[in-house]
């Protein structure tokens, strides 16, 4: 029997350091691993002894791509402890900030990192030579997401204007209105862009996932909601630790997650879409229908289209928030510390970002727990890889490697985040 190993020591077009290892004996895949060798940075340890007001700025340094997710989950957990509920215009501004993060992060992944796989390019710069309009529109969209982040947060990476209780300074209405023209351009351009994406060739690969996401009564989830799944899970965020169990594996600095008493759980755009379809704005549902998506999509390769539908949602939601915005009286609520434990979960572009803090009466953090969505998805990615490669062992090493990389990029893995988290080796024996 011929045997081979396919190895990618440093995966490209993902955020952070990971590798793929595939061991094949004859026509059987024996092992498929997504290795994470991003060095650990020990956030839960270094947060101890810090004032609770410092936590959002520190935890957002876990990830330069999705800092808002870390900021927001920390704020919600800590506000919960202190008995503060941020409502009204401040809550709306938090949704707007999240719109900015989803637009920039999804646009980066959809067009710069994932689309080149479908069109056969090494990167977006090469792709731009043959598809200039696609890449120029993508950059314009990404820039718009960053402009929203900057208008509210001061800068696109590690915003400085978010605090427990609200913001340091709320934006002038005129500053937000200035974003509307570009948002309307993007909504007008969206159907054509969706059509380009939905014309890609998608491998047949529908999987039977347990999808989990937040669900809120009135809105597509960013900041708040119950933890739900398509297999009956429906609990408040405070029960996250009872329903999702972490364990450590030898080949990863990221911890793996399972649903207690069951198997793996899939987080991110496919899960949110399946569980919250009815909450999408009509423009987003229209784009989904024209792209040929049903109300549930189980093929991770089509996640690129679902991510784009979420971009359209974020664009429409941003327009809604901005048009209704009135400058609030105060930029933040007063938050006084009190001893306790709090839980925060918000929808990062890649799925649920969970944080738990315990603080003392003086506001000093005594313990914390942070779970990044990619660490939860890591085991699902490995299961996908095993199933996907098993049907394609006849391919050449080169073709199999690229398609397996693509299967990993389906999840927009953020390895810098996941580390507590990647190496491809295909080994054939």
């Amino acid at each position: 029997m011929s045997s081979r190993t396919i190895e990618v020591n440093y995966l490209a077009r993902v955020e952070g350091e990971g590798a793929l290892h595939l061991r094949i004996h004859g026509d059987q895949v024996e092992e498929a691993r997504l290795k994470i060798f991003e060095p650990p940075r020990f956030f839960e340890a270094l947060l101890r002894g810090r004032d609770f007001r410092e936590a959002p700025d520190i935890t957002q340094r876990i990830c330069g791509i999705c800092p808002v997710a870390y900021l927001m989950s920390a704020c919600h957990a800590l506000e919960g402890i202190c008995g503060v509920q941020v409502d009204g215009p401040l809550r709306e501004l938090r949704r707007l900030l999240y719109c900015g993060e989803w637009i920039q992060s999804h646009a980066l992944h959809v067009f710069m990192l994932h689309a080149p796989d479908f069109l056969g390019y090494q990167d977006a710069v090469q792709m731009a030579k043959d598809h200039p309009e696609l890449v120029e529109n993508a950059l314009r969209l990404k820039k718009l997401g960053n402009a929203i982040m900057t208008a509210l947060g001061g800068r696109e990476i590690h915003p400085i204007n978010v605090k427990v209780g609200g913001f340091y300074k709320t934006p002038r209405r005129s500053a937000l209105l200035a974003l509307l023209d570009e948002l309307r351009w993007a909504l007008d351009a969206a159907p054509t862009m969706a059509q380009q994406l939905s014309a890609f060739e998608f491998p047949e690969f529908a999987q039977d996932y347990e999808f989990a996401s937040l669900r809120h009564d009135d809105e597509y989830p960013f900041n708040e909601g119950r933890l739900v799944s398509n297999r009956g899970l429906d609990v408040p965020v405070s029960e996250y630790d009872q329903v999702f169990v972490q364990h450590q594996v030898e080949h990863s600095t990221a911890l793996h997650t399972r649903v207690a008493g069951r198997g793996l759980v899939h987080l991110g755009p496919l899960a949110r879409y399946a569980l919250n379809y009815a909450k999408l704005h009509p423009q987003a549902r229209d784009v989904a229908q024209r792209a040929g998506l049903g109300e549930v999509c189980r093929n991770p390769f089509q996640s690129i289209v679902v991510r784009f539908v979420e971009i359209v949602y974020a664009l429409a939601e941003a327009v809604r928030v901005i048009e209704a915005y009135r400058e609030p009286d105060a930029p933040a609520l007063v938050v006084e510390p009190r001893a306790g434990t709090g839980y925060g979960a918000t929808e990062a572009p890649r799925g649920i970002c969970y944080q738990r803090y315990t603080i003392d009466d003086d506001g000093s953090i005594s313990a914390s727990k942070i779970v990044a969505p990619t660490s939860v998805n890591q085991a699902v990615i490995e299961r996908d890889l095993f199933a996907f490669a098993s049907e394609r062992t006849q391919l050449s090493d080169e073709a199999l490697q690229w398609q397996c990389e693509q299967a990993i990029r389906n999840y927009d893995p953020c390895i810098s985040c996941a580390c507590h988290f990647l190496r491809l080796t295909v080994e054939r024996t």
Partner: protein
Amino acid sequence: MRKKTLAVFKFASCDGCQLSLLDCEDELLALAGAIEIAHFPEASRAVMDGPYDLTLVEGSITTAHDAERIKHVRAQSRTLVTIGACATAGGIQALRNFADTAEYLSVVYARPDYIETLASSTSIASHVTVDFELRGCPIDKRQLLEVITSFLHGKRPSITDESLCADCKRADVVCVMVSKGMPCLGPATHTGCGVLCPRHDRACYGCFGPVTAANTGALAERLFQLGMRKDGVKRVFRSFNAGAPAFADESRKHE
């Protein structure tokens, strides 16, 4: 004429500083036309072997493997520029330098024996020769473009080494320390962010690290006068640039 080559390497970090390059939406395609992006795995599968004309290094050194890897990166690089607080000062993960890393490991991991890490997080310059250090957590993308274009044209980047206060005055932003009594790190902090925090009614918290010859002692005294307690003064110097010598030394005085 042969196009000059650019490489990007990552060590322990959040990816944000190299993302700044992709965040140059208006300049990215022109930049990619002017230079050969030879090694940038976050953006491209195509990776060329070195040597490279300009190498940008993000992240700090926290593993024995990375301490070796940076030497190979240096050997392949004609010019090596560090980008961001991790590469320049060790990043937030340098807080372990003031603690017991074995104890840190046990807090985060059930099986610390699976994890390979050093007891410290250190800057790139403490391992190899660095040609220029770009500050910030994250870096400012306008400064990044200045660095790239300058080195490709063989000149030093025009980035001034002065405190945030100078920029605040020029920007006509009212001093938050004087007018509102906020505990601002601006007097000791390197400029470059564009006066972000004071513009947002917030005290500077030191993302860009210490300016050369920072008078951290006088600043600490002022922070005490403003009512900050010893532990608070220690902590303000111990964040994203905790490993920068001026901030590290000052923080140790308040343990």
